[in-house]
């Protein structure tokens, strides 16, 4: 990939953009505010929502409940949107949910090769790498190489299923429940569920790792 912009006459490395972008966004926000088109306090409210309320702990609650409650797991398989909404998680970028379950045979991995589709309602805002060209280009052709970058080596026999989110369905991976967690409460189980395990770039933590 090119290290520099060729089209906009700036030519900074993209890690050093902040000053340009700060000015650009400030101008945009000022114009829109002067025109009465945006409410700066609404922007604060949106940011606060995704910094403090809507994040991967939501998804962890869904997974922990699916591990603990077979009826809920079955509902999640059949109608993920409704099952997830029953725990209070719904809304933007979670309108049409699908839950895909890892099994001893198959590992699931979610990507959006065309943009940045991600299940905000259960995972919050996507990480930078999820939206960036390296992950989006490689997940569909070389998932084992991708997983290796996350420190995850799957056995050679394990099947890998990659879900490219090309429409408005948003995918949540339900990782396998770690061994030795019989009798764990839902709260304790939720602690084992990482964000990456719900994208497929990781596994749930073992009970030892969680300590």
């Amino acid at each position, binding site marked *: *990939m090119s290290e520099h912009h060729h089209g906009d006459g700036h030519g900074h490395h993209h890690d050093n953009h902040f000053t340009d972008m700060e000015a650009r966004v400030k101008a945009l926000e000022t114009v829109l505010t002067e025109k009465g088109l945006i409410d700066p306090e609404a922007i604060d409210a949106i940011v606060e929502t995704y910094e403090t309320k809507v994040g991967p702990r939501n998804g962890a609650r869904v997974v922990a409940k699916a591990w603990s409650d077979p009826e809920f797991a079955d509902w999640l398989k059949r109608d993920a949107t409704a099952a997830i909404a029953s725990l209070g998680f719904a809304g933007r970028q979670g309108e049409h949910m699908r839950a895909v379950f890892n099994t001893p045979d198959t590992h699931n991995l979610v990507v959006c090769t065309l*943009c940045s589709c991600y299940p905000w309602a259960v995972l919050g805002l996507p990480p930078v790498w999820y939206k960036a060209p390296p992950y989006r280009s490689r997940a569909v052709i070389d998932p084992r190489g991708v997983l290796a970058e996350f420190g995850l080596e799957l056995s050679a026999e394990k099947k890998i299923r990659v879900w490219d989110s090309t429409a408005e*369905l948003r995918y949540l991976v339900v990782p396998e429940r770690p061994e030795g967690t019989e009798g764990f409460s839902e709260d304790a189980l939720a602690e084992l569920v990482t964000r990456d395990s719900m994208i497929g770039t990781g596994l749930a933590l073992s009970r030892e790792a969680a300590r």
Partner: protein
Amino acid sequence: MNGPHDLGGQHGLGPIAPEKDEPYFHAEWEKRALGITLSCGAFGAWTLDESRHARESLPPPIYLSASYYEIWVRALETLLKRHGFITQAELDTGHMLEKGREPKRVLKAEMAAGVLAKGGPCDRPVDRPPRFAVGQTVRTKNFNPETHTRLPRYARAKVGVVEAVQGSFVFPDDNAHGKGENPQWLYTVVFDAGEVWGEGADPTLTVSIDAWESYLERV
């Protein structure tokens, strides 16, 4: 369109480099970019599909080197100008110069939580039965429209199997260009990696896309 956004299967784009304990935002302006983009989406002046098309229409060198929030900001400027809300002169001076178009709705702070919680469902009823059934073998179309589509290049003219009929949804290829929602049935279609990538493909890999009915042909 065969734009810079259609990345599946490209090589040479570098390491993924996941960050440890990654923050949600890497600069204050990214927070403002998120909030401004969502606020302007609430005008109701354009669709999600049109905004995606604005992003993928950025020049490839910019698209590939920009952070995602920068892509959002650049595309938002295009949309705001296209729909008459602001002018380039205003962006250049950083101040209002003329009264622009009035939106249907301005997102106020007290509305934000409700709007985010409601989201924007895209499922719509259609009055005909699905043309394809679960288990049916289908071939994706070969086409290269200059307009918006959600059929990635790597998955064109490929034979796969319908795994699920997912309901009926707004058709982005039309909706992005103001041609109406024209909903269609949507299918999850799964391909063996060998069909998609050919020689050297990972034999344990299958890849699925969600494909609108008009992307698919009988085999």
